[in-house]
């Protein structure tokens, strides 16, 4: 087991505080989503997705260049539950448990991790899926590309944060983060598409109408 999220030492405290403020705004919006949009009968599905995403994040898959990567899960949560705010809700819970119990991802920098994985992952995953699915009318390739893109963009944003922090020079940060996560994104996209297929095949009614799988 190794670190998988930004640790405390990677971002100065003042910048970490800014990320926390931004994250808290999105957490508040995700709680509003849960109160207004999340139907009670969807709660078990939300809980199972959160548990599954926690478990799968512990599985680091080897990629070339002596590196590994794991799934993020935000695109899947957003697509299945029909809102990017669902991904923020789920990923925030997962990140709090990982950080507090297992020291996986820092405490002061948790806001940055919530922004990257929950907010960026959720919004990029959800809207790229929606756009692609309405264009190609096939949910599974759309989910694959949305999953890939959500991870890739989140990694590039992380590289920019590292550059602002002074931890990585921008160029080598973007190149190495982009290179590794372009490969890790294949895992993200693949699992997103397969999980969507399995859930939809088992219970089509459980997938949010917003996801448009049936179209």
């Amino acid at each position, binding site marked *: 087991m*190794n*670190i*998988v*999220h930004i640790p*405390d*030492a*990677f*971002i*100065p*405290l003042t910048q970490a505080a800014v990320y926390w403020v931004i994250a808290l705004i999105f957490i508040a919006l995700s709680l509003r989503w*849960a*109160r207004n949009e*999340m139907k*009670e*009968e*969807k*709660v*078990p599905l*939300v*809980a*199972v*997705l*959160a*548990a*599954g995403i*926690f*478990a799968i994040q*512990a*599985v*680091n*898959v*080897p990629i070339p*260049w*002596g*590196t*590994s990567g*794991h799934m993020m899960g935000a695109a899947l949560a957003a697509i299945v539950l029909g809102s990017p705010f669902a991904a923020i809700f*789920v990923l925030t*819970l997962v990140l709090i*448990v990982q*950080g507090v*119990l*297992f*020291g*996986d991802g820092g405490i*002061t*920098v948790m806001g940055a991790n919530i922004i990257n994985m929950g907010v960026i992952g959720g919004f990029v995953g959800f809207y790229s899926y929606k756009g692609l699915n309405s264009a190609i009318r096939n949910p599974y390739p759309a989910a694959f590309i949305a999953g890939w893109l959500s991870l890739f963009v989140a990694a590039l944003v*992380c590289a920019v944060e590292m550059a602002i*922090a*002074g*931890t*990585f020079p921008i160029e080598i*940060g973007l190149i*190495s*983060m982009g290179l*590794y*996560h372009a490969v890790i994104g294949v895992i993200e996209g693949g699992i997103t598409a397969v999980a969507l297929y399995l*859930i939809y095949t*088992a*219970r089509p009614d459980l997938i949010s109408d917003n996801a448009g799988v049936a179209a």
Partner: protein
Amino acid sequence: MGRENLIYFGVIIALVIAVAAPFVASSNPDGLESAFFGVFGAKEVQGSDLDEEAAGAAEEQVQEVTGNTFSFASPFPDYSIEGMEKAGEALVIVIGTLLVLAIAFGLGRVLSRSE
């Protein structure tokens, strides 16, 4: 498949992944960590050899760069229980999975019922 069955099936899959994770997961540095080692000279971007000494030094160097020396002693650092090898890792990942399940379910119930 009934709704309840899908949920139980999902929980079982999550637990199977949790138990298997320590045994199948790669111990290579992950994407962010690998990029970090590349920047601090412990590893080539496209190389697979990690200089352990430089990697250890990098973790101290980065604290000097950012000035963030915050540290927090989590109860199960790196998903492990002291003295227990892979079985301990599997156990704490199972505990974490069930905890996330319980918190999400409890919080979800409370929020979805409030108007």
